[in-house]
Structure formats: structure tokens, C-alpha cells
């Protein structure tokens, strides 16, 4: 059973709770860098984040066996010592060790273009709330697994590794909020809402800072820590997405790299297009950001469409849970068929919100084919 299945209802309930609190406590408004205010929760952004999150779970179902399998193979081939699974302290140590490698994986995700292309999905929301936490990439699996191979060599058993990964992932969820302020000493030891807000900011002092998963001491150790400053943070990325489409949210930076790859002449230049830091070797790609002039991408959705898209999101959520539950029991072709239908179900509402013609076509088509697809999957 996929443990994320159990977490999904808790995620949804807490997103709703945070949204309610944001309205009750602050009227859903917070200060922005231009001297005005902005929404804490914006409907299209939150729906987009949740759709991206669901898409990531569906995409993750496919390579899961391969990435876990590689870890197991590495463990069987190279493990130097056997970790005592009966000792709780050993499990704590495994989480700390995991968190160390998570730091480096996360740092690479920000400092290498081809890895940033995957991870940018998590950062291209211009809001910062619990729905942003669920906005996970569908493509980072390509590189992520390799950062944990040293744990296999150290002898961390696969079940301990998987558990540590889950703890690290779940811990980070609560740090994506503007409703919790500074927490004193806690902010200097652990990843917290305060220092994680800095991580999601695009202000100059926020770039490439605070990579930790649970412990922020790694950042202090390796020189990437920045404390939150007074004044509002401008969230998002310097190559703005300007869309709520979950597919485009996953792919847009790859198109930037593809353009640079085509323009590059020679192997070295092509490798640089893939592996250079997104901000350039000397930070030259970062110049000229004016937080006060930043225009946030906001999509205006009519109340009727909002109700429809909201209802579709609930349906997609239930179907995604069904997908995750049944995926291990299906044949490969059934898994692919269900995934394709789910991708359409997650992309079409974004098209509707953005007023795209393809959105209406895709929405109509996926419902027309829903019955035959269901027949192939369940009968």
C-alpha cells in the first residue's frame, strides 16, 4: 500500500483548515513588496498546485519500482555494515543521514539546470501556503535516487531508507505557511516556516538559500543559510510560469533548456546548457530584480467555473487515490491508460480556467471516453 494514500486526506483537510484560518485571521490578505496586499490563497493557484501534486503521485507510480530496486541492488552489492533495525536510535540516525543527503540533492536541484527544470515545479507558484507544499515535480525522479546511493553503501536497509524518506517529506509539509511566524531558536536548528519562506523567495537574499529538509544546520554548515528579514517576501521564480496548467508547470523550464541546447555548438557547450547553474556561474542571470515592480500572475475565475473546477478537483482526488490503490494490481497497459486519462482530467480544468479552447475540448473528450476507459480498467 502506498503510504501517501493515507496522508492525502490529512493534506486536504489541513489545506482547507489553513485557508479558513487565512480568511478568519487575516481576511486572506498579506502585505506585498509593492506596499499593497495580496491574497494568501488564490483559487486558480491553489487548484493548480493540488493538480500538480496529484500528477506527481501518478507519475511517481511508474519509476518507483526502478528507483527503489536500484537502492536495494546497491544495498545488496555494497553495504558495509548492517544497521540494527530494532534500535530506535538507529532509525533516528537514518533520518539524520537521509536529511544530509537530501540537503545535497535539494542543492543540486537548485544549482544544476537540468535538475532545476524538474524541481522548479515546486517553486513556480507565486503564493506560499500548504497547497504549495503539495506542488511536487513529476520528473525529479530521474536524478533524485542517485543522491541516496551512499546510504545503501553505508548499509542503511531499504525499509529504513524508505521510512526516512517519508518522514523527511512529511515533515516539510507544515513549513509551507505564512500563518506561522518566527520560532526563535527552532528557526536556527530546524527547517521552519520562517526559513523555508526564504527558500521560496525570489528576492536577492533568498536565492539558493536554506536547502535543508528537516535540519537547517546543514545550511549553516555549508554556507547556504539565510535568516528571514523584515518585510514581505516575493515568492516564485525569475523565469515565471504565467500559467496554472500542471503539465506546463512541469515542462516549461525544459523548453528553456531545449532552446539553449539547440543554440549550443559542441559537446562542452551542450553540457553547459544542461549542467550550468540556472543563475549562471557568477550569478549573472540574477541581476535586476525589482520586487516592488513584480507582477503576480493571477487568473480570474467566475464563481460558476470555480464551483465546476472545485468539484472536478474533488473527483480527480478520489480517482487519483483509486489509481494509487489499484496501480500495483493492474497490467502495465491499464496503468498507462489510467494515467493518460488522469493527466487529461488534471490538465483540462486548468485550460478552462485560463479560457483556452483546448481546455473545453479536452474536458469534453475525457468525459466522453470515461466509460470505455472505466470498462477497460474495472471489468
Amino acid at each position, binding site marked *: 500500500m502506498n503510504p501517501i494514500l493515507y496522508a492525502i486526506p490529512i493534506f486536504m483537510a489541513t489545506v482547507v483548515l489553513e485557508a479558513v484560518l487565512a480568511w478568519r485571521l487575516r481576511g486572506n490578505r498579506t502585505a506585498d513588496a509593492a506596499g499593497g496586499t495580496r491574497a494568501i490563497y488564490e483559487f486558480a493557484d491553489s487548484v493548480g498546485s493540488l493538480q500538480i501534486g496529484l500528477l506527481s503521485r501518478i507519475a511517481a507510480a511508474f519509476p518507483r519500482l526502478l528507483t527503489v530496486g536500484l537502492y536495494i541492488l546497491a544495498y545488496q552489492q555494497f553495504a558495509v555494515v548492517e544497521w540494527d533495525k530494532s534500535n530506535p536510535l538507529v532509525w533516528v540516525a537514518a533520518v539524520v543521514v537521509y536529511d544530509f543527503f537530501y540537503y545535497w540533492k535539494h542543492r543540486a536541484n537548485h544549482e544544476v539546470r537540468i535538475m532545476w527544470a524538474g524541481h522548479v515545479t515546486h517553486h513556480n507558484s507565486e503564493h506560499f501556503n500548504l497547497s504549495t507544499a503539495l506542488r511536487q515535480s513529476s520528473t525529479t525522479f530521474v536524478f533524485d535516487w542517485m*543522491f541516496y546511493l551512499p546510504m545503501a553503501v553505508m548499509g542503511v536497509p531499504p525499509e529504513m531508507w524508505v521510512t526516512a524518506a517519508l518522514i523527511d517529506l512529511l515533515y516539510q509539509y507544515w513549513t509551507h505557511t505564512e500563518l506561522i511566524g518566527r520560532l526563535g531558536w527552532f528557526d536556527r536548528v530546524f527547517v521552519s516556516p520562517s526559513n523555508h519562506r526564504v527558500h521560496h523567495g525570489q528576492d536577492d537574499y533568498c536565492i539558493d538559500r536554506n536547502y535543508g529538509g528537516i535540519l537547517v544546520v546543514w545550511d549553516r554548515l555549508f554556507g547556504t543559510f539565510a535568516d528571514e528579514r523584515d518585510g514581505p517576501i516575493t515568492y516564485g521564480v525569475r523565469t515565471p510560469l504565467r500559467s496554472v496548467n500542471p503539465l506546463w508547470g512541469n515542462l516549461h523550464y525544459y523548453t528553456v533548456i531545449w532552446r539553449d541546447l539547440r543554440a549550443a555548438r559542441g559537446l562542452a557547450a551542450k553540457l553547459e546548457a544542461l549542467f550550468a547553474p540556472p543563475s549562471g556561474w557568477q550569478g549573472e542571470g540574477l541581476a535586476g530584480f525589482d520586487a516592488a515592480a513584480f507582477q503576480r500572475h493571477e487568473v480570474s475565475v467566475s464563481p460558476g467555473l470555480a464551483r465546476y473546477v472545485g468539484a472536478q478537483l474533488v473527483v480527480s482526488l478520489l480517482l487519483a487515490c483509486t489509481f494509487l490503490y489499484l496501480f500495483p494490481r493492474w497490467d502495465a497497459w491499464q496503468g498507462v491508460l489510467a494515467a493518460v486519462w488522469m493527466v487529461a482530467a488534471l490538465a483540462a480544468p486548468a485550460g478552462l480556467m485560463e479560457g483556452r479552447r483546448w481546455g473545453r475540448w479536452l474536458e469534453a473528450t475525457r468525459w466522453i471516453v470515461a466509460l470505455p476507459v472505466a470498462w477497460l480498467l474495472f471489468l
Partner: protein
Amino acid sequence: MTPDAFSDLVLALVCAVLAHRCRADGRGGVGVACLLIGIAALLGVLRFSSWEPLATAVGGAHRFASLVAAVAGFPLLAFSLASPGSALARHAGGAWWLAFPIGGFGIAAWLLGFKAWAQLAPLLSVFAIAWVVLRHGGGRSRAAALTGLLLLFAGFAIAAGAWPTGGALPTLLSKTQALHYALAGALWLVVGSAAARGVGGE
């Protein structure tokens, strides 16, 4: 210390010196490549030590590091020598990140059964290094580079099993020792001569 451990120590020291020099003269890529090979050699010192519990404990780590050196270290060395002006070859940070996926996918290929990649990747790298050495000027540094190249090829021939099992030679040097000394000499001459001729540097 056993003779095998000593040969790994020599290789580790050569790599450490080269990595330090390369870092100082802006050849981060070559430095990282030497470091990857040096880490494997350092673990080899422990593995081939005469203390059995330590040798057993680090066996897996040494085999892993050797695999990383083979599938990531040598390709990175070849790339950095072939494209010295590239930012990835000059910046150690960039070189680390380049080595990571090269190594990761190489290890994945090996784990999934394509074991020959651990020999093919360094062999292709040696051919690339040979191309670099043959392409660049003459003089004493070229003679040193060619000698290093010969040692590099000899090292891979030894690794592939071209070391006698009978006669006087194996009693003088084991296959492991021969490989380590050949590699140490090869790296010293190839990387050192590249610096002398400005290949692999700014």
C-alpha cells in the same frame, strides 16, 4: 601495511597532490576526477590493510568507490582534458554536478546487469585522453604525456587480466599493485604534462 595497500596509498597520494594542484590552477574538473580516483584508492588502503575487520568493513565501500571512479572519474577526466575552456571543466562545483549523473547512470547500468560499462567507460575515456594528448604540440611535456598514455593503456590491459600468473613478474608485483602503480604514473604524467602545456588549464 601490505604491498597492495601501499600501492593504493601511492595512487591516493598522487591523486591528492594532483587534485590540490588542479584546484589551485583553475582546473576543477581534472581535480574532481583525481579526487574520485583518490577516494577509491584511499578506501583501497584500508581494504588491503592487514587488519581483517577493517578490510571486511570497507570492502563494499571500496568496490563502490572504484566503480564511481571508473564510470564517473575517468569520463570527467577525459572531458576536462578535452574541453579545458569549458566552465564545467574549470569550476569544481560544476564538475561535481556533472560527475553525479554520469556516475549515477553508470552505476545504474552496472547494477541492472551491464557490468561491462565499468570497463567500457574508462576505456572510452582513455581513447579520448589519447586523442587530446596526440592533438597537442611537441616537446618534453608531450613525451611525458605519451609515456603517461602508454601507462594508462597498460593499466587497463592489467585490469582486463593481461598480467602473467606465472614466472618472476607476479612474485615481484601483484596484479593489483601493477594496476595501481601504472595508474599513479599515468595520472601524474598525463595531468602534469597537460598543465605544462596549458591543456586542461585556463
